């Protein structure tokens, strides 16, 4: 059986425990993320896990790729500690401000420079933007078929795999020939934990950093200027409400609440 080379796209995202510290710059309408630690999207761990399992079953290579500012290499270190063979960070000020199309374009050219892949893995959606658009768009730029919402993968033979496309209240099982782009869901596997051995591994593998010139992209198609969508306004959502605490004995409080809800007109008419 032929070995399978996988590339896993991994996005650096602001650590969720600090999201309430993400503030809005009212003047520039941009989000202030400075000082917020970077984390790896949870689904990207599932994507990596699936690639590692396939390598264990079939041999081949696992390469992690990410597009992000300098410093986000730590995401890729994590991938290597868990067992990736190689990792690349696409980093260049020219990539900044990319929408999904410009992100997918850059990632696809990075993957081309890596020599392509039998399977490109992604998370079904990122933690912060969570558009879920990057996978199908990477596939288009690489001219490969794609399946998203993947909750199960089976290798059929050297060229074919079977993937389960999970839809609302059901699924569609498809067979598709490699090379293919797969965006995975959480339920697909249980990502492994780092081991001591992994940290040793990290010392032996290197993380490359490539600029826009190095991957040979068309510069009009990357970054903010290469993005067809524009953000014209950003607002943060206020989750705070009245916060009125009702006091008294349980039956008394219950009665008070019913009165309030009646006054607010939110109780069903009986």
């Amino acid at each position, binding site marked *: 059986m032929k070995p399978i080379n996988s590339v896993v796209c991994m996005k650096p995202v602001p650590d969720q425990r600090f*999201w*309430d510290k993400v503030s809005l710059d009212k003047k520039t309408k941009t989000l202030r993320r400075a000082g917020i630690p970077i984390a790896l999207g949870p689904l990207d761990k599932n994507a990596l896990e699936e690639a590692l399992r396939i390598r264990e079953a079939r041999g081949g290579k696992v390469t992690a790729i990410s597009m992000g500012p300098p410093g986000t290499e730590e995401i890729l270190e994590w991938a290597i500690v868990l067992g990736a063979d190689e990792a690349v960070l696409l980093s260049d000020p020219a990539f900044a401000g990319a929408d*999904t*199309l410009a992100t997918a374009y850059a990632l696809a050219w990075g993957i081309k420079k890596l020599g392509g892949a039998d399977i490109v893995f992604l998370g079904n959606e990122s*933690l912060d*933007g*969570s*558009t*879920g*658009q*990057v*996978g*199908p*768009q990477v596939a*288009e*730029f690489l001219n490969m*078929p*794609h*399946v*998203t*919402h993947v909750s199960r993968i089976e290798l059929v033979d050297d060229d074919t795999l*079977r993937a389960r*496309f999970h*839809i*609302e*209240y*059901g*699924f*569609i*099982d*498809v*067979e*598709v020939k490699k090379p293919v782009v797969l965006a995975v869901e959480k339920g697909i596997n249980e990502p492994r934990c780092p081991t001591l051995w992994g940290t040793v591994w990290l010392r032996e593998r290197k993380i490359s950093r490539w600029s826009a010139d190095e991957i040979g992209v068309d510069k009009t198609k990357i970054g903010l200027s290469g993005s*067809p*969508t*524009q*953000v014209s306004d*950003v607002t*943060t*959502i206020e*989750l705070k*409400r009245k*916060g*009125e*605490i*009702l006091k008294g004995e*349980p*039956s008394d*409080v*219950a*009665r008070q*609440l*019913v009165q309030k*809800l*009646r006054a*607010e*007109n*939110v*109780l*069903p008419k009986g």
Partner: protein
Amino acid sequence: MKEHKGVWVFAEQRGGKLSDVGLELLGIGRKIADKQQEGLAAVLMGHKVKPLVDELGEYGADRVYLADNPLLEVYRSDAYGRLMQEMIQQYKPNILIMGATSIGADLAPRVAAKVNTGLSAHCVGFDVDDKGQFVGQVPGFGGAVMASVICPNHYPQMATARPGFFEKLERQKGRKTEAVNVDVKFKEEDLSIKVVGTFREEVKTRPLESADVVVAGGYGVGGKENWKLVEELAEVLGGGVGATRPPCDEGWADLEGQMIGQSGKTVRPSLYIGVGISGAMHHLVGIKDTKVVVAINKDPNAPIFQAADYGIVGDLCQIIPRLVEAMRVSF
């Protein structure tokens, strides 16, 4: 004169039945089309789906692009994507909206890349600004941030929209629509994805997204036995039962049908009552459009009290039965 004209809505169907989201989008699509003084069209793909054309007309479509072919029987991204690309290139719509269901969210980005345009993701609102530009309200950071996204120089302007956020128009029986037949020029051999099986679960209950009252239970409910209290409260209010993640993980509630929040459902009832829920942002973003939020929690410092209109500090086993009683008496 602008070359691109018309508002298109993808009329998703499964097994020959139209999904609600497509009809909801015809509702908002009608408003946008009227504002732009353009026509509203539905795109219908499938096999033996012709009978659905009239229904689309009755829900507001002026025109239906109909592609009826055995190759389109079950959704696959390559067949549907390719056909949509061909249709866009031939008919040049100004705006194209699809439901952010798993199928719409799979198809839309591929199509956007094929025709080199932008795509506003999972919108919860649409507008047309002063310059006549189409604007999508896009939630990010789990819903804690809302971005207005425009796509000024590429066509069609594309967006996906969350199911349940827009209202269908009143069905106008007998309203006429024009059907345009679209040929499928590719063959099975030209496709790289083959459908080998499908599974579909019948949806019995009314989806939580459209419930007017939602009672949600959290980890504090403590077990399957107490979960019945949550269900009882929902029942007396004629509402749906939701949950946070831990009860789904524990098997007291169903992950797919009941989990509310960033990775689950977005609900927008008039009344939400959260029981034994601490109030993590992941959960709260799923209820932010609720009219009145009530929280019951035994910890007076639980963050959910800040995000609630009315709070009751106490043990749910004591509070819920009293509440059920008070509600029963009051109806």
